[in-house]
């Protein structure tokens, strides 16, 4: 999309909208300057998406899908999960979920999926308008749910669905698994050519893989700044700043953004500027964020002098980066995308969490048991027990949901957190 005019149009669209002043919280350090830039990038992304339909081929993509393979074909990519998180954060989750439920989708199903289907049925979205896709691109490396969900979208929207099937790593990944995934890449090329009307360009793919790898490595470096004491940002900041690595992966803009963010964070580390003013305890977060409670939780923990310095969730887009190799794009993407946390056995998750706890000097762990996300949540009770046994790290489980606030009990969560705070001080 052309950059010309978009900022002006965005400016016009903002005219007349009231901006609510945000009351500064005394427990936090100075806000990150990059946040403004992030907001502009993502506003522009959603804004331009309104005009993508008809101008560019549009793909709706799952967060774990190897999007690099779409980039050489010029697809404008939209991430329904990212949109679901946005709806959750804007507290529109229950309303959109209810629309899907009216159409027969059970309340026990993933709320990202229900929000997306609710958006399909009602057209409602805080993003103005989402472009209709020409293609659906899903990978079950994060869950099987996306396969069921995208299958429903394909049925309703009458557009083709490509599923990148990643065998679950019950043990080590095998050559057979890799070959299977490489073959799938080869098979999807003609489909992508047909949908986009463009010929495949191998060299361009290599470039996108290279940029995606650099962006992921830089994102990893961004997260690693939180090893410093005090950490220059909180994981709640990172939940926001991760959007480009999910939604704009492979594009130079994401890399550029993370280089700027990294420079700012390193500067904060050098000057000893913390995200919260009095960082007494350092915590780890497990699972996807509770989007509609981000601000409340951020303030609650900061008020206790507790800062989240790492999360298995944010780490997922940095963890398998080293496998990416532009000289072997298909094979390396197969490895990188198949070895992500949710497609790996629970033993490897336990080892990962142990490593993060040690590297980031974590004192306690908050586990979000998310109704929407079974592959992330099943096994958490044992993880809690094993981490306590092995590292004596106290932890708490919050039973909630990622975007549907109807599954959240304020009272129950408060009670559990109060007990956790006591344990942390003991």
């Amino acid at each position, binding site marked *: 999309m052309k950059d010309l005019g978009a900022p002006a149009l965005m400016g016009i669209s903002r005219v007349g909208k009231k901006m609510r002043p945000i009351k500064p919280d005394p427990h936090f350090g100075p806000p990150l300057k990059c946040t403004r830039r992030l907001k502009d990038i993502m506003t522009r992304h959603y804004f331009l998406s309104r005009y993508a339909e008809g101008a560019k081929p549009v793909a709706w993509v799952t967060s774990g899908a190897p999007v690099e393979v779409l980039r050489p074909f010029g697809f404008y990519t939209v991430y329904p999960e990212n949109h679901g998180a946005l709806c959750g954060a804007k507290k529109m989750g229950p309303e959109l979920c209810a629309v899907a439920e009216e159409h027969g989708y059970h309340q*026990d199903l993933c709320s990202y999926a229900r929000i997306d289907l609710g958006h399909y049925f009602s057209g409602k979205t805080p993003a103005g308008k989402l472009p209709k896709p020409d293609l659906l691109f899903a990978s079950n490396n994060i869950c099987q749910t996306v396969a069921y969900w995208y299958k429903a979208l394909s049925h309703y929207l009458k557009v083709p669905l490509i599923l990148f099937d990643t065998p679950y790593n019950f043990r080590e990944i095998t050559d057979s698994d890799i070959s299977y995934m490489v073959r799938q890449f080869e098979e999807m090329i003609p489909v992508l050519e047909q949908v986009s009307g463009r010929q495949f360009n191998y060299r361009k793919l290599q470039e996108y893989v290279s940029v995606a790898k650099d962006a992921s490595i830089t994102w990893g470096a961004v997260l690693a700044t939180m090893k410093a004491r005090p950490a220059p940002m909180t994981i709640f900041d990172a939940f926001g700043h991760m959007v480009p690595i999910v939604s704009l992966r492979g594009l130079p803009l994401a890399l550029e953004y993370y280089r700027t963010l990294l420079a700012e964070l390193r500067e904060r580390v050098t000057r000893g500027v913390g995200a919260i003013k009095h960082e007494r305890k350092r915590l780890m977060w497990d699972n996807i964020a509770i989007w509609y409670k981000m601000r409340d939780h951020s303030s609650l923990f900061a008020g206790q002098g507790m800062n989240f310095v790492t999360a298995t969730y944010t780490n997922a887009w940095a963890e398998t980066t080293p496998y990416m190799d532009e000289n072997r794009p298909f094979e390396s993407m197969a490895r990188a995308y198949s070895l992500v946390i949710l497609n790996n056995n629970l033993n490897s998750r336990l080892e990962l969490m142990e490593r993060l706890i040690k590297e980031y000097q974590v004192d306690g762990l908050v586990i979000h048991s998310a109704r929407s996300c079974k592959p992330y949540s099943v096994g958490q009770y044992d993880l809690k027990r094993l981490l306590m046994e092995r590292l004596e790290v106290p932890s708490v489980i919050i039973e909630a949901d990622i975007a549907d606030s109807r599954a959240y009990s304020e009272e129950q969560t408060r009670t559990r957190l109060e007990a956790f705070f006591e344990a942390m001080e003991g």
Partner: protein
Amino acid sequence: MTRKEYLIKQKKMGRHIFGVFPAQYPREILWAMNVVPVEIWDPPLEITGANAHLQPYICSVVKLGLELILQGKCDDLDGFLFPHTCDSIQNLASIVNDYLGMEKPCYFFYHPKAPFRDSSRIFYMEQLKGLAALLEKQLGPLDLFRLNQCVEQGRHVASLLRKLYNMRASGELAASNAQFYRVIRQGEFLVPDDFIPLLEEFLTASKGRSVAGPAVILSGVLPNPPEILALLDELGVRVADDDFLSCSRRLLVPFSQARDPFEAMAETYFALPPCTTKGSSIEERLEFLFGKIKVSGARGVIFYMVKFCEPELFDVPQLVKELKKRGLATLVIDSELNQGLSGQLNTRVEAFVEMIS
């Protein structure tokens, strides 16, 4: 003979016993390696210990399976096999293998997900051979001659089941709904040497007219609770066919001409009826259901869901909408396993039957 007594007898005969989680797996390989696969769908237990490992929003198939292990009722088994059926079974496999400290061999079987391509076929063959190679390490070499015999036995079982299903669909099976599934479900643990005579006997004994009442099709994971079958019998309703994961979707195995046993098993897998757990499209599932409706003259479909079962629950709204468009009645129920039928469910089923009568 109870299932337990049967398995003790099999063990005494020198066979290995494996606990197999739902749903689709290459049973011929296990039979050929002298293994009795005992499928774990809905053991009649009260869930206590499993709640310490699994959240309240996990389905009762997974919870009951784990409960069975935790209560020590699998202690005499020689191993477990976990097919990749859904996210919850996938993680359960890892909990059992990685976290419970059990010293039993655990095997995992990944089937490629639809839409199927050439890569899916190559991969599936490799999966079959890979599983056989892993089992050989524990159980000794796989005899290909024996495997061929087992593939042949599998064909025989499938042809008998097809015959039974066809007779039922055309109203020529004089057996109650409850009797039918009681027999079919014996296949979850009987070896073919014992299952084949049972099916043949049932076929012979059940020839005759079915009840004259309205016909319905059941869809879902498995025919549980059995009380719904008894209620339908009581109301004079004929279950003319089913779309159960545990039954027709994996038992109505198409005939394969392939001479190589691995190729025959692969051919069979890709020709199985459409299923949520394989990623089949809604269009394929509808075509399958409409085919069954046409043959059997069913007037409605009852979707009997296991609570929290994502693969099934995602497809239901679209299936219901399309079925209704064609003037068919639908009833959607979701319930925990082994919970019987509540008064409210009873009333809903009765109202549904009145509607189609």
